[in-house]
């Protein structure tokens, strides 16, 4: 840290703060080789790095033009403030952080200092220290030029490329990741070389968060939470789950923290500030989780939001949606309770009116259904689902006449 030389305008997509990709890397044969120092890299030709930067910039432009970025300037500003706080000084690389609307538990960085963090990962965090753990790790990938180091290692070892191709061809989630992050990001992630980089990013990231006044133990907390959630939801996250080497990584980190960072009790968590800044994201991410049918995760997200904003009608509506769509025994009754609460908090909120109407309609209570469909149409006359509602109303009339 600190003493490394940087090489001006050089960039490349780097690895991710992503236990499952790291897990995958750990699964590959890792040739033993001393880690190249950034200083030695700076002496080599920079043409490859510039080429990589160019490719990375293309990928960034694609991200940003495809509706993937979560639009919340205030949140972005907050994340960038934390990044600045973490970055070693003097800083010769401008770190920028943006949020991607995506439920994956992931973050990744480009070597030009551009860090993307998925809403799914942010939504699992409880405080600013956990955010600092992720950002510290990603910042290290940038400042220590991990992408270039990985690329040069990779380039010189065609066997690694074949291993990557083989792994990608066998793993559907990795194929998805490759398409999402750009093939370069995924390839980088599945090289055995990454293990060294991830270890360095873990170690330096912890140091950065400690220097900024955060409790390094929070890094372990979020790691454990993610492992637990992946197991609980049976998420298909490539080679993560119970992968023993990933567990080893956590054990290694814990040893490091216990040995070098004794708890003082005065560390910064900034829980309240963090939760307030992310309140809207929590619910937006819940909508994505509901789309994907990850109902338990969605419920946790709503509950977290309700601890910050206990009278939020949208949160209660989403709780209702979780139960209405989950379709387990007793769920409709629970859904009705939450929809009722949403309506009582905001009588002008049309969505729960329709949802209540749907439940009554399906259960044959057509008169009640009619009442709620009518109130929905009245509140939102231009609703995009108006044609469906009109159809239900027609059926309600026919039932009443019949």
């Amino acid at each position, binding site marked *: 840290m600190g003493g490394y030389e940087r090489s001006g305008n050089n960039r490349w997509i780097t690895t991710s703060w992503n236990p499952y990709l790291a897990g995958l890397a750990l699964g590959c044969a890792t040739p033993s080789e001393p880690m190249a120092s950034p200083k030695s890299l700076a002496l080599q030709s920079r043409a490859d790095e510039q080429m990589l930067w160019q490719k990375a910039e293309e990928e960034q432009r*694609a991200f940003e033009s*495809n*509706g*993937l970025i979560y639009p919340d300037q205030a949140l972005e500003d907050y994340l960038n403030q934390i990044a600045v706080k973490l970055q070693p000084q003097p800083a010769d690389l401008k770190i920028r952080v943006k949020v991607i609307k*995506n439920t994956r538990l992931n973050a990744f960085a480009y070597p030009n200092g551009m860090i993307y963090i998925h809403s799914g990962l942010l939504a699992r965090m409880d405080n600013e220290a956990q955010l600092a753990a992720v950002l510290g790790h990603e910042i290290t990938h940038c400042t220590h030029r991990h992408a270039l180091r990985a690329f040069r290692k990779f380039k010189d070892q065609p066997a690694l490329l074949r291993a990557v191709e083989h792994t990608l061809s066998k793993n559907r989630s990795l194929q*998805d990741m490759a*398409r*999402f992050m750009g093939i370069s990001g995924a390839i980088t992630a599945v090289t055995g070389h990454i293990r060294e980089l991830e270890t360095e990013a873990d170690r330096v990231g912890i140091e950065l968060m400690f220097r900024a006044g955060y409790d390094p133990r929070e890094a372990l907390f979020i790691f454990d939470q993610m492992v637990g959630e992946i197991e609980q939801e*049976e998420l298909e996250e490539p080679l993560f789950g119970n992968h023993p080497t990933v567990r080893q990584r956590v054990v290694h980190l814990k040893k490091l923290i216990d040995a070098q960072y004794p708890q003082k009790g005065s560390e910064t968590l900034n829980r309240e500030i963090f939760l307030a800044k992310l309140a809207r994201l929590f619910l937006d991410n819940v909508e*994505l989780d*509901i*789309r*994907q*049918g*990850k109902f338990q995760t969605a419920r946790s997200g709503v509950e977290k939001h309700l601890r910050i904003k206990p009278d939020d009608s949208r949160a209660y509506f989403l709780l209702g949606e979780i139960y209405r*769509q989950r*379709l387990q025994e007793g769920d409709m009754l629970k859904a009705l309770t939450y929809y009722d609460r949403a309506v009582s908090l905001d009588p002008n909120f049309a969505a729960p009116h329709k949802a209540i109407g*749907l439940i009554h309609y*399906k259960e044959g209570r057509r008169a009640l259904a009619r009442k709620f469909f009518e109130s929905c149409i009245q509140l939102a006359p231009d609703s*995009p*689902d108006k*044609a*469906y509602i009109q*159809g239900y109303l027609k059926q309600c009339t026919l039932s009443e006449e019949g």
Partner: protein
Amino acid sequence: MKKVFWLIFLLGAAGFMACAHTGGVPQPVSYDFTIDIPEGWRKIDNNRYLFLTKESPFLQYVMVQNRPIGMMFRHTKKKIQKEMMPEEAAQIIIDEIASDENILNFSVLVNGPAEIQGYDGFRILFTYNDKEGSRFKTLYYGFIKEDTFFNLRYTAAEQNYFQQDIGTFHRMLNSFQVVSAEKT
């Protein structure tokens, strides 16, 4: 037009079964379909669904499928169920597509009820970009008949191709018939 009798024997489609990961073994469906394939369109071999294109799948294609209800989707864990109303089934289709990381700038233009050859179903019109930046438009019809979810979709490059064959797709839609799988 030549009348083509298209059927999918799910029981015999071993590959199909293998793809339906988790959630148990999918049940065979009770219903198949027949549909007219227009002149000039070619079938791309596939034992999971009927897939047709005139020039190239990147320019336009029609896909028709009879899918066991309860069968897992790839991007959402939600499943279509027998007792679902068309709107609920439509929402799952939208959720499945919206959750696909390869579908970018996804936008639903129309989502409403539709009658497909006498069956109550839904109709969704949506646009999206692929990873290469090409913009596509899809018209998607779906309905549930007992244990079978039928869906018919027409996708084409939005700018120059979608309008060209939308009429052909509607003619195909009008020729669509559900038949008992036992009869096939």
